[in-house]
Structures are given as structure tokens and as C-alpha cells.
């Protein structure tokens, strides 16, 4: 079996300047980060256990809406991907697709021990053990299961990180896509692909680094049909053809 290098968590690379065409985020940086921290739309992916702890956190006992946290339905709308309990291999494919479809800045929260290290399913052939092998995780809330207080306090920590501008692990997925893709390919096989275009997106954010592409992405390119957006085109033809 092939060895994969252990990821080295590097600090913010000062050479890559944060570029954004967004007037709002340039001019009102502080305000925007504050607003981002106070308005979090949450997509909860609760196919494992642990989902039972979320309703108390949302409803009248603890009321997440006080903090501006709301449940949302589709990945496009959400900021937080909240994964509770174990993630089976089959589920993980969907989790990765969902994560890739979310709009940056996006945050992943793993709840319960199973997302941290496999928990009580450590020996299972069908579960993915460490969630952060496959996507960057901002926050783990350990426990089997964590109580709503723990969930809320975890979310408050995330809010604090967003406010001071440190919750940037979503960038890591674009910067080191090859590493994550490698782990995914190891689990799902070499034909693994999602209908999204991560490399193109990393260029869009200017987050394309040497580690974005590598042997695994080359493997991907061998079989993936490029999914370029359907450009509007006139495609006017010569008159002779139409007669």
C-alpha cells in the first residue's frame, strides 16, 4: 500500500495575498466578518447517530437562533456543514459532494467521537474514520454524544474564530486538493469523481498552489469529463448550410 505523507499544517502563507473581487469584503472587512459570525446557516448531515442532540439545541431549551444560527436545506445556502456520528463510506461520498457544492467561506463541524477517530466503529470496514482526511474540518465536538450545551459552546467557538478571521480551513481544500483527493481515491477507488470542478474553483479564488494538482488529480483527469459551464453562444452558421 502506498504511503501518504502526513499533512503539515502550515500557518497562513504570507506570500499568497488574499485577493477578493468583493467590494463588501474589502471595505467593510470587520463588519463583514462580524456579520458572517452572527449569521450562520447550517446544513446538518445526520445519517449517523447524534442527531437527537440537535433539536434541543435548536428549539426552546437552547435556541440557536439567538446566535443567528438557522437550519438550511441545500448546500448552496449553507455556511456550516454539520456532520454527526459515524460516516459510512457510502455516506462519505455524498458528504464530499455536499461539501464541494457549498459556497465559501464554509465550515465543517464534526460532532461525536466517530467523526474524530472512528469511535466505537473503529474496527468497522464500512466507516470512514477521520473526517479531516477527506475534507478540512474546522471544529470537532467530541463526546458520545455531546450534549446540546457542548454543541452550542462549540458553535460559539467557531463564531469567535470567524470574527477574528481565523476560520479559513476551507481554503486548505483548494490549496491541497491533491492530498484530499488522494485520500478519497484510496477509499473509493481510482474512478472516484464528483460532478464539481475543484481545480477550476481554486483558480477562481486564486488559491491554486503547487499542491492543488498532483498525481491524484492527474488520475482524475484521465476519466473525468470536463464540466465547463454551458456558455451562452450564438453559434451562427453560414447561410449555405441552412438552405
Amino acid at each position, binding site marked *: 500500500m502506498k504511503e501518504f505523507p502526513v499533512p503539515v499544517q502550515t500557518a497562513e502563507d504570507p506570500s499568497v495575498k488574499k485577493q477578493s473581487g468583493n467590494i463588501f*469584503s474589502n471595505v467593510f472587512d470587520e463588519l463583514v466578518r462580524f*456579520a458572517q459570525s*452572527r449569521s450562520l446557516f447550517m446544513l446538518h448531515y445526520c445519517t449517523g447517530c447524534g442527531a437527537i442532540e440537535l433539536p434541543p439545541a435548536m428549539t426552546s431549551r437552547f435556541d440557536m*437562533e439567538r446566535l443567528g444560527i438557522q437550519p438550511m*436545506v*441545500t448546500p448552496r*445556502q449553507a455556511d456550516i456543514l454539520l456532520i454527526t456520528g459515524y460516516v459510512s463510506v457510502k455516506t462519505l461520498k455524498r458528504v464530499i459532494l455536499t461539501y464541494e457544492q457549498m*459556497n465559501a*467561506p464554509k465550515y465543517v463541524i464534526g460532532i461525536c467521537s466517530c467523526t474524530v477517530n472512528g469511535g466505537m466503529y473503529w474496527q468497522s470496514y464500512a466507516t470512514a474514520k477521520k473526517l479531516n482526511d477527506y475534507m478540512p474540518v474546522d471544529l470537532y465536538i467530541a463526546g458520545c454524544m455531546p450534549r446540546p450545551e457542548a454543541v452550542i459552546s462549540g458553535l460559539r467557538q467557531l463564531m469567535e474564530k470567524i470574527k477574528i478571521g481565523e476560520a479559513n480551513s476551507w481554503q486548505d481544500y483548494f490549496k491541497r486538493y491533491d492530498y484530499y483527493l488522494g485520500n478519497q481515491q484510496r477509499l473509493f477507488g481510482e474512478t472516484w469523481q464528483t460532478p464539481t470542478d475543484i481545480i477550476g474553483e481554486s483558480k477562481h479564488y486564486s488559491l491554486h498552489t503547487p499542491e492543488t494538482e498532483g498525481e491524484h488529480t492527474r488520475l482524475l483527469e484521465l476519466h473525468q469529463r470536463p464540466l465547463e459551464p454551458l456558455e451562452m453562444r450564438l453559434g451562427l452558421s453560414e447561410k449555405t448550410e441552412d438552405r
Partner: protein
Amino acid sequence: MHIGLGELLIELTLMPLVAFIVGMLMVLMMRRVGARLQRRVGPPFFQPLYDIIKLHSKETQISHGLIHDIGIIMAVGGYIAAETLLPVPGMNGIAEKGGLITLLYVMMIPSLGLALGVGQCANPNGSIGISRALTAMLAYDIPFVIVMAGVAFIYGTTNLVEVINIQQEGGIAAWGAVQMPFMALAGLFALQGMLGKQPFEVYVAPAEIATGPMVEMGGKYLGGLFVMQCFQLYTASVLYVTLFLGGGENWLFLLLKAFAVLLIPISIAFLFPRFKTDDLVRLMWKWPVLLGLIGLVLINYR
């Protein structure tokens, strides 16, 4: 009633701006009322603003094509234009150049824009949502049109400025709600449908069609829809106040009345589950239409 161009321009800028701010307050009220009914605390005061700022400041703005973008612009822009057709205390905008029928039709432009944008997303959940939204529009517009006809007969005009003047000159006895209580009741039904709140929330239906039209909307696209919702709440409630509760003598009264009117549908909303689409149509074509027709007969034999 001749005002300078500069003054008119200021009005045209101020009217949508005020509508937006009041609309955000209305969204806040809606969420707070919902929270209180569920014995929660509810969101902080600036929550609607945070949401809108956050959505507009997302790094990723996923678009499915040009029509997707244009649809959102039409949805927000249509409402910005509609606000200038809706007279408020001290400002008439271009209300006299359009009137009630024009306002009704301009208010359809945002829906059309949204429908266009959602269509390009190539997501059947969104398309189902739009098909349901249009069906709902067909359902609630029929009682609403009866109400409109009643209003036009009783005041003898479709000009909203005159409608307000007639009511304010006559005092409470001249209010639409006193003159035609059946119509006012039918109008409340239509209002509930227009706001798309439970029990008539067929086209959002998060658990069923994944929020319908909003399914592929993220970032500023969703933000645009949030802005649109502010305008929608404002327009619907202020229009109701204009037609039935004598408009606003001043801003304080207008806002009091508008918030009080809005309280009715949103209190109902959080107490009911969702109807099926065909049940919605059936209900809308039965009771409010009946009320409206009774109202019309009463107006004719007044």
C-alpha cells in the same frame, strides 16, 4: 399636486429605501413572533441585516448562467420599482401615473424574474417550486382581483392617492374595512397567500422540494431573495392598509397599522402545517371568493 423634479427624485430614492428598512423590521418581527410562539427568544435585532450582509459577502457566488443573474436583478429591481407606485405619508412617488392595476402588474415582475432565474438553475426542485408558486398566484389572485374591483367601485378610482384621500377625509367610517367588511376579510385570505406563509407555503416546502425556488440559490442570489422578502412583506401589508385601513395619516400610524396587519398572517403561519397545492387552490377558490362575491353584491345594493 405638482412637485419639482428634484423633489420627485428624492422621493423615488427614499421610498424603496424606507420600504427596505421597514421590511427588515418586518422580517425581524416575523421571526421574533415565530420564536415567541415556540417559546424561544428569537434572533437579535440586527439579524436580518446580518443575514443580508453575510450572503452578499460570500466568497463563492455560484451562478448557472446569465439568466440566473438577470432573474435576481429583476426580482429585486421589480420590487424597488413597485415601492414608488405605493403612496406613503408625504410621498406619492409616481403613484398617480400608475394606479392600482399597474401596481398589481408591476408586482408580478419580481415573480417572473425569480421564475426565470430559477428556471435556468436546471433543478427540478426549483421548477416544481415555481409551478406551485404560479398555481398559488392563480389561486390567491382571484379573491384579490374581486377585492380590487370592489375597491375601485366603492372609491370610484383606481388611483391609490385618491383612495387614501377619500378614506382620510371621511374618518374611520370611510375606511374600506368598515365600508366593506367582507372584502377586507377576503383580502386577508389573499394576503396570507401572497406572503406564501403556512398554511399556504406550498412552493417553499423545505422538507419536500428542498425550498423550491431557492434550491440552487446561494450567496448574493439568496441575499437578493432575502431583500425581496423584506419588500414583499412591506408592500403587501402597506397595500392592505392603503385599501382598507385608511392609509397612513403619518408615518407612525402607517407603521402601526402595517405591523398590526402583518401580525395576523404571521401569527397564523406559525400555528399551521402546510396544505397540498390542490387543497390550497380549492380553499382559495371557495371561501375568500365567496366572501368577495358577497361583498360585491353588498356594494352594488348599497
